[in-house]
Every structure is written in C-alpha cells, then in structure tokens.
C-alpha cells in the first residue's frame, strides 16, 4: 500500500512525534508513506484562505498536482490539511473557471491538475485499507484495559467535501482501533467537539475555554488518557494543558497521545521511536502502570 504522504507544517516542527509514530507504525503494517517532494503549506483552513482564497486554493493545487505526478492518492495525518486539500480538490472539480485560472498559475512550474487524486486521512487507511483485524494481529503488548477517550476532532469526520469514511456525529473507526489494541474506548460525548485549535494564536483564551471543556469531560468519563489524530488538536490538549490548568486553576494531568503512538506502544515498539518523550504531559508513568512500554 503506497501513498503520497503530505505531512503538513506541524509534522515537521511542533508535532514531529506524530510523524515519527506514524512512520514506525506504517512500517509494521506494510504502509509506505512516500513524502510528497517539496510539498508546500496545504493552504490553511482559514489563515490564508480568508486573506486570499484564490492563493489558498492554488497552494493546495500545487500539492495535488505533485501527488498526481506521483500517481498515488494523498494521505495526511493532520486533519486540518486533510480538510484544506479536500476542499480545494472539490472546488477545482466543481468550478471550471477557477480550475482554469489555477491551472494557469501552477503551469509555470510545469504542473498540471486533472482531479484524479483522492485525498484521504490516515485513520481511513488504517480502518479500511489495513483493517482492524490486521492491527489486532500485530499487537504484541495489549494495552491492558487502558481507558482511552477517543478524540476525533472536527475535520476528520465532518464537512461534505471530505472523503467520508465514518459517521459525522458518532464516528467509531478510532474506537475500533483502540479496542483492537486491547484498550477500552471510553464513552466520550465530546469526541467530535471542536478544540479551537485555529484560534490558538489570535484568541487564546477562547481556545483554552474550548479545550478545557474537552479535558473536563475526559476526566469525568474517568479516562486515563486521550487519543487524538490531529497535530493541532494535540497541541491544544497536550502542549497547552499546563497553561489551561493555571489559567482556570484546575488540575488534569491527562496524557494526550497520538493514536499512532498508542498503536506503536501496543506493537511493542521503542518509545523513543514513537516520540513519547516529546509529549508535554508525560505518558510514561501511565504506560508503566498498565505494564506496557
């Protein structure tokens, strides 16, 4: 299974552990993630899109065109990039005029966009191309009933333009993966509730209020940790957790792991390979408690 891999800006910096764990896990599962050469920023959900929407679509189109040259579908780990590339793909498909103008722009670099490339999320690949049985088969260290709150976030399941692979209100694909690892996917009513990631720089207090709600619910459901997909969500819930705690005067101490990190732990992979030491709220004590890692 080969895919054109679009990392996105976060994976090269603040969310390196997402890429690390994904690569490690992909090796075990026979997934080959071929990084799109010289990829550029996806075009942003809103930062560039609201400023200059045509530019945003053009940025997305450049990535789509390179992937088309590679002859493979795009897979991304970042939900925001997933949405942005899907949106652009949809706009180009439905609006002939914009398609023409974008084509003129990217043609300067010798790139063409025909629309044959699908944009998919890594969770989709895990659920539908690999399958839960295969994941279960490769589990060497079952996670011993670890209570995991599956946090999907918003853009992996929702807008119409994305390649829908799960229910927008009550998705279960990540739950199934978690269960396959021997952990317990806890009932988590906020599983698709927005964390406010896009507001982290400009409206930090609003974002913290939104993220706090998610952490409170997870605690109420007696989750041991949160599993997340998107690097933006992860930043909000993990890296910003201490700030949220001090801002509101509460204490969570709730580890937030990438789903791929969890899978890697269950596969018995080296924690360093999974970047577990990079999570700001350390998951180490938790993983030791459940006799894994």
């Amino acid at each position, binding site marked *: 299974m080969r895919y054109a891999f679009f990392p996105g*800006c*976060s994976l*090269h*910096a*603040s969310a*390196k552990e997402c890429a690390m764990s994904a690569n490690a896990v992909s090796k075990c599962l026979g997934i080959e993630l071929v990084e799109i050469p*010289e*990829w*550029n*920023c996806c075009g*942003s*959900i*809103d*930062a*560039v*899109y*609201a*400023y*200059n*929407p045509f*530019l945003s679509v*053009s*940025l997305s189109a*450049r990535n789509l065109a390179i992937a088309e040259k590679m002859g493979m579908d795009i897979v991304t780990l970042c939900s925001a990039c997933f*949405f942005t590339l899907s949106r652009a793909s949809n*706009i180009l498909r439905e*609006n002939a005029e*914009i398609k023409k*103008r*974008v084509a003129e*722009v*990217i043609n*300067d*670099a010798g790139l063409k966009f025909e629309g044959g490339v699908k944009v998919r999320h890594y969770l989709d690949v895990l659920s539908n191309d690999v399958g839960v049985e295969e994941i279960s088969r490769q589990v060497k260290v079952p996670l011993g009933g670890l209570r995991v709150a599956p946090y999907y976030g*918003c*853009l992996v399941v*929702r*807008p*119409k333009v994305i390649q829908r692979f799960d229910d*927008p209100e009550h998705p279960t694909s990540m739950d199934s993966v978690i269960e396959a690892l021997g952990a317990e996917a806890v009932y988590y009513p906020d599983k698709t*509730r*927005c964390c*406010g*990631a*896009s*507001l982290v*720089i*400009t*409206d*930090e207090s*609003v974002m913290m*209020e*939104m993220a706090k709600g998610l952490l409170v619910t997870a605690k109420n459901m007696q989750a041991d940790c949160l599993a997340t997909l998107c690097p933006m969500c992860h930043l909000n819930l993990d*890296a910003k957790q*201490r*700030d949220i705690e001090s801002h509101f005067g509460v204490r969570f101490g709730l580890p937030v792991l990438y789903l791929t990190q969890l899978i890697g732990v269950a596969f018995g992979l080296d924690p360093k390979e999974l970047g577990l*030491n*990079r*999570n*700001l709220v350390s998951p180490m004590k938790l993983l030791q408690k459940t006799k894994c890692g």
Partner: protein
Amino acid sequence: MKMPGGDKILDCIQCGVCAGSCHARFAMDYSPMQILKMVHLGLRREVLSSSTIWICASCYTCASRCPRSLDIPAIMSGLKNVAMRTNVPAPVALKPIFHRQFTEIIGRYGRMHEPELKMRLMKKTNPFEILQNASFGVRMFRKGKVRLRPSRIGSSTHFSEIFRNASNEERRR
C-alpha cells in the same frame, strides 16, 4: 474570486441549529444565524465589525447540521476577506495582522515557521502580550518542538513564482 457559499445565504430559514451547535458561540457577540440574517439585510458595518466572523473556528458542526446545507465557515471566511480588503478594523487588531503575516511567511518559505510568526506578531502589536506565552515557548523548546531554522522548499521548484502569481491574480482581475 467568488468563493463557494455566498449564493445560498438567501436559503437560510433562521432555524438556529448553527447557533445551537456552535462550540465557540460563547465568545461571539452575534450568533452565526444572526450574522446570516444581517448579511441578508445588508447590515454591512455590524457584520464586518462583529467578533463572530473572527471567532469561527471552521469546525463545520453548524454546516453539517444546517437544513439548507449552507457552508457557514466559508461564509465567515468570505466576510473576513471583505473586512480585510476594505480595511474594516476587527475587534482585536491582532487578527487581520495574523492572516497577513501567516501568508507572508508561507510566501517566504513555502511552509510555516512558528517562531518567525510569533516574532512578527510581537513586532506589530503589543510585544508584552505575546511574551506572556514565554513559559509555553520555553517548554516547547525544551521538548524539541521548536524549529529554529525554517523548513523550506527548494528554489528549483518555481514556488515563489506560483505564490507571486496566485497572490496577484486577484488584483489582475
């Protein structure tokens, strides 16, 4: 460029499911539903200076439940676009500055470079406000989550040309 979404504003039946679903509603002065009504009525000033359009996090909960399938986040983006192009001041000055600086950095490197973004924003607004995040920055740095040098695209890719042409495309029209 006419972005998708705006043509359906007249379809809105003002049911309120968008406002009821909105996770950022608590921080908005007008609800998303009200903004749609106000656009319909041409209340330009109120809409463009509302906090609502700047707070929308594009989570798409509203759009997925809207019985008229309105693309509300796209409409909010569009309104922000109008506000920025016509220089209507946002409730928080930082916001339009953020959009512009973000875009410029992408133009420079082809990819985001957070430290530079932070620095540019500090320069343009209140440096001390940004410094409040200093402890956060330090924590991130300690965990190796801060790239000191930007990740950039190679120059042979003609990326800058594409960026420049796409940026100016609108102006050329």
